[in-house]
């Protein structure tokens, strides 16, 4: 193969004759800066991180390193196609027939329009392109609020609204630049997952190696983050809130809090009446108790001598307490000993970590910033994500974590716990606005407008009843099972799907979801490669991939702001189109073009910028949209962006540290009660039949130690089951990529259902045992793997063992899907946020052999056996 001729030229791909294109990544939903090398022959042969981007600093995660294999995947959809096999299902060959774009648009627009004309609510959008909100927001063009995608509740249903309440931001992170004591609770932030994996792990590694930042990781499984932490605290699943409340108990009992912060920068001193609402004057202004003068004064009264955080008082004859005292009352029963019973974490550990955390917080310390401000310096942060927050009482759980931070006064302080905006254009439109009574205006709806209350409902997933929450897509199934119960007047019959795999990603039993999909009259999928979902499509509209397309975006970057710019490194390999071209074409044919442009103007922030506003009757290219987004950010035209690939800089200090300066943060979230009462009233008035089943107790202004219902399942379900991803599997599709597959199934944590060896022995199981795992809601099959890094009550199931067959895809099925075992009902969904429970109780039954359906064809376990016994590669002979 090698000749002396080829030898003279460099053989290292990055050194071959060619050019570098500055662009940005989309192998997960984030947008690290990258450089794409294209040879003189037009082949993309190397992708590296862009070292000029201060977010990822030239680094890329394994997924970012694998984009080439997505681009050249032989299974990519190469032209529009039409199904010829009427039988649909995961792994069933749709028998695609290539058609022209004209025909594909024609059929798709005709079928969608049929529903649009009958009742726009019959259209079920499933648009998961998180880097293109102009696509995400498409259904608003016809007033449709349906939602059949995982974004939202399966990532952070309760998390995002809570960040909106506390920081007026979408996400949150700890400030790796100064943090010295970093708690991770059920998150891989800085190690394996969450925000900008490559960027954040780069920042956190520097903090750990250069500053010896201490990391404490609390979770049931020894994840990467726990393995790297100074301390791993194994915890019973779904009890993280209790751990945080135990810590808070200690901090308050021992007087370790930042009282100045609580008094001046939060509503903790606001007086709360017995009804849970703030006591207000006729102008809706709140009161604070002046302990010096022993009377209540308005929050902004400059004559207040000493702000009371504690105590019971009377105002206008009504008993009241400062919000802080209300939490102290709740925490009275949350002793470390009591929380230890629930969490299995030793009381002494809870107490010690609370003290260490408070000590490291350096309450009272300040830092002079370069912008001249002197702000609190609080080098501690308690961060958390899906593992900790994804539970029935998600809103309370998120708030409990926030309050640990708030007690330390570290909210948006250097070294502390930071709000992270979604698209950084928000920092310039001043995402922190004053609300009432000196408080920051809460912004729980970080993903745009939500539908108003209506009965009968206007959404199939009941979003009409989540005034403070995120879309609960699992309710599509709940309603599908009994539409009459929910007074549903319409039945969705068309799915418009774009880069979304809901049949994989949303919880509830697959068989029922399959039934849901079978009920659809027409499904169109805009995608790159086959997935479980595209096996259900009637029409495939193939899109350009990340290396062939334009975009300009920035998704929740910790530490930085600006726009990540994407440009085609090469022309499309196949007969594909941009998402913009596809949705504009559909919109025009459906007669909603003008409305769509109007939605884009609002969504992307072009409104108010006449030079950027899209003309309503025109169709725009992805390039033009990207150009305008660049202009919107910094006034630079597309040539500037094409040269640099981004406009990312470190966050401006005034936008990063305490951007809400002068406003009070929500220690106490009265809105939960106000919105609950409004909803209750609306439901009563409309005589909503299921209002008695509604989980009204979920709306709490402060966290309580109530147990999530998962702990109350029948006793024969004697283990908890959790699922997890790692850095190679972050966010969406990964395992169709041969390079990712290559590293995932060689990693022991992804090769079996993980059990602590003592638990396995007690259950009569050993490494390699084949088991049936049953929850009260569904089941999976699997093979036991042993790990000392598992909480003894917990079964750990890697997400890589939760795939199904899909036609032509390299993804291998395992023994079912973890999500099958999760509930999709009201009881296990947080009425306050839409967050469903994401762990379950299970029982294990040992089987002699795999069930028949898993013996047909190749599964994950065959692949794993190949690696473990690899002949000729270090395995058995």
């Amino acid at each position: 193969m090698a000749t002396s001729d080829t030898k003279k030229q460099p053989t290292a791909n990055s050194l071959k004759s060619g050019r570098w294109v500055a662009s940005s990544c989309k192998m997960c939903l984030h947008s690290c800066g990258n450089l794409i090398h294209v040879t003189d022959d037009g082949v993309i042969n190397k992708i590296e991180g862009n070292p000029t981007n201060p977010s990822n600093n030239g680094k890329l995660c394994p997924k970012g390193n694998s984009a080439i294999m997505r681009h050249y995947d032989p299974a990519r959809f190469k032209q529009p196609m039409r199904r010829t096999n009427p039988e649909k299902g995961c792994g069933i060959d749709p028998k695609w027939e290539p058609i022209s774009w004209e025909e594909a648009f024609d059929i798709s627009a005709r079928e969608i329009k049929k529903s649009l004309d009958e009742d726009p609510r019959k259209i079920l959008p499933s648009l998961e392109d998180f880097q293109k909100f102009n696509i995400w927001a498409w259904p608003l063009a016809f007033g449709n609020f349906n939602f059949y995608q995982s974004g939202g509740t399966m990532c952070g249903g309760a998390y995002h609204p809570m960040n909106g309440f506390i920081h007026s931001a979408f996400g949150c992170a700890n400030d790796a630049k100064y943090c010295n004591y970093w708690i991770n609770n059920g998150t891989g932030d800085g190690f394996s997952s969450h925000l900008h994996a490559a960027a954040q792990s780069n920042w956190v590694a520097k903090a750990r190696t250069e500053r010896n930042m201490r990391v404490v990781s609390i979770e049931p499984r020894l994840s990467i983050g726990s393995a790297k932490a100074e301390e791993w605290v194994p915890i019973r699943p779904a009890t993280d809130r209790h751990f945080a409340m135990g810590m808070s108990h200690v901090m308050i009992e021992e007087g370790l809090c930042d009282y100045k912060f609580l008094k001046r920068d939060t509503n903790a001193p606001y007086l709360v009446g017995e009804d849970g609402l703030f006591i207000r004057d006729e102008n809706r202004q709140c009161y604070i108790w002046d302990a010096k003068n022993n009377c209540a004064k308005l929050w902004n009264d400059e004559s207040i001598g000493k702000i009371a955080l504690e105590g019971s008082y009377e105002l206008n004859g009504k008993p009241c307490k400062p919000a802080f005292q209300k939490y102290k009352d709740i925490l009275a029963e949350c002793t470390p000993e009591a929380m230890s019973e629930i969490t299995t974490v030793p009381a002494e550990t809870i107490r010690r970590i609370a003290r260490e955390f408070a000590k490291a917080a350096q309450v009272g310390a300040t830092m002079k910033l370069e912008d001249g401000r002197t702000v609190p310096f609080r080098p501690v942060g308690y961060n958390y994500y899906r593992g900790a927050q994804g539970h029935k009482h998600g809103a309370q759980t998120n708030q409990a974590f926030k309050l640990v931070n708030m007690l330390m006064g570290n909210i948006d302080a250097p070294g502390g716990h930071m709000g992270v905006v979604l698209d950084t254009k928000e920092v310039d439109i001043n995402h922190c606005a004053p609300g009432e009574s000196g408080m920051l205006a809460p912004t729980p709806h970080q993903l745009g407008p939500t539908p108003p209350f209506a009965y009968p409902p206007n959404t199939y997933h009941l979003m009409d009843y989540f005034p403070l929450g995120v879309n609960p897509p699992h309710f599509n199934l709940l309603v599908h099972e009994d539409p009459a119960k929910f007074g549903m007047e319409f039945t969705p019959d068309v799915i418009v799907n774009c880069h979304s795999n809901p049949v994989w990603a949303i919880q509830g039993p697959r068989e029922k979801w399959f039934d849901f999909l079978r009920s659809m009259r027409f499904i169109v999928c805009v995608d790159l490669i086959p997935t479980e979902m595209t096996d259900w499509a009637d029409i495939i509209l193939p899109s350009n991939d990340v290396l062939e397309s334009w975009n300009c975006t920035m998704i929740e970057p910790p530490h930085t702001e600006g726009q990540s710019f994407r440009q085609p490194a090469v022309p499309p390999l196949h007969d594909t189109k941009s998402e913009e071209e596809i949705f504009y074409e559909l919109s025009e044919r459906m007669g909603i073009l003008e409305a769509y442009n109007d939605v884009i103007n609002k969504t992307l922030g072009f409104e108010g910028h006449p030079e950027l506003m899209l003309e309503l009757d025109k169709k725009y290219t992805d390039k033009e949209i990207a150009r305008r987004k660049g202009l919107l950010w910094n006034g630079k035209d597309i040539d500037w962006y094409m040269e640099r690939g981004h406009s990312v800089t470190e966050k401006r200090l005034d936008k990063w540290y305490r951007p809400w300066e002068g406003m009070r943060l929500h220690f106490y979230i009265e809105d939960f009660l106000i919105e609950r009462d409004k909803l209750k009233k609306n439901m009563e008035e409309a005589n909503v039949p299921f209002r008695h089943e509604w989980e009204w107790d979920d709306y709490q202004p402060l966290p309580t130690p109530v147990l999530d219902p998962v702990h109350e399942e029948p006793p024969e379900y004697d283990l908890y089951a959790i699922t997890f991803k790692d850095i190679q599997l972050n966010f969406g599709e990964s395992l169709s990529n041969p390079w990712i597959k290559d590293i995932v199934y060689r990693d022991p944590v992804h090769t079996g259902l993980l059990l602590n060896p003592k638990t396995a022995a007690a259950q009569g199981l050993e490494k390699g045992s084949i088991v049936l795992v049953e929850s009260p809601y569904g089941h999976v099959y699997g093979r036991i793997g042993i790990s000392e890094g598992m909480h003894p009550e917990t079964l750990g199931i890697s997400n890589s063992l939760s795939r199904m067959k899909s036609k032509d895809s390299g993804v291998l099925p395992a023994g079912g899907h973890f999500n099958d075992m999760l509930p999709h009902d009201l009881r296990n969904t947080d009425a306050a946020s839409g967050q469903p429970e994401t762990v379950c109780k299970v029982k294990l039954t040992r089987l002699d052999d795999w069930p028949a359906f898993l013996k047909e064809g190749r599964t994950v376990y065959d692949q794993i056996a190949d690696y473990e016994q690899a002949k000729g590669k270090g395995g058995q002979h």
Partner: protein
Amino acid sequence: MSIENKVFSGDTLRVGYRFQRHWDNSMAYAFFCAELGAGLYFVSLLLNSIVGMALGLLLVSTGKPYFHLAHMGVPTKSWRAMLRPDRSWISRGVWLLAGLIGAGFLYLAASLFGDSLGLEANSAVLWLLKIAAAACALGVMTYQGFAMSHSSAIAIWNSAIMPMASLLYSLAVGLAVARALVPPAQASGLTDTLLLLLLGLAVMHLMFLHSGWHGGPGARTSVELLLQSVYAKWFWGLVVAVGIVLPGLALSAVPASALAGAVSAVAVLAGFMAWRILIFKIGVFEPIMRMNPFHTAG
């Protein structure tokens, strides 16, 4: 710790032992042919057995290169293997093989046709050829052992027992086969020597097991594989029982029987072949974990 508790990581990303697999069965057959051929030639040379010498040379010049080339990744360039005799035992082996084939063939030819060429029976040329052939044969009989023992990678190979085993086996299989080829009278005179060699093999195996068992983790693991894994039955059955005990008993019981001689020869060969294959199979690379000086378990 026994073999069940050890991690064999295969082609995974787990720290563990990895099997030596770069030298495969084809290489084992090549080693077998070389050592049997050279041993047979050497013994036949001493016994003046033309048939033995011819057979030995045949094996060395056909079986060995055939199986070795079958193992080579780039057989067409295999001639390059001769380029580094200064440091590589494989290179030295190529020269030794060439020497054995060259000198051995010439000596054989001289022995057969020397008279017609006018060579005297005890001429200096013949002696030189004989010494050269014998020396090369001894080299071929041992160099593969040196090639294995030379590097520290596969701990069980990294021992002086490897060349010793090569030499002992070469002599034993050479003698066993040669003994079956020579006239009965001559053969019976060789019985004691062969029994002695079998005893030597037994002692060698004991030393091998003992030093491996008490050696480092890699060597210990290899011995455990030999004694506790699927390889145990092949080791005890073929290498020990068939390869040493059976011929030992047969030769002791009926030393004069030609049948016993033939059976013994086949048995010793079978044992040797099993040994050659097993020694490759049980070779392991040690887990990198050992190098992590920072890790304190538990």
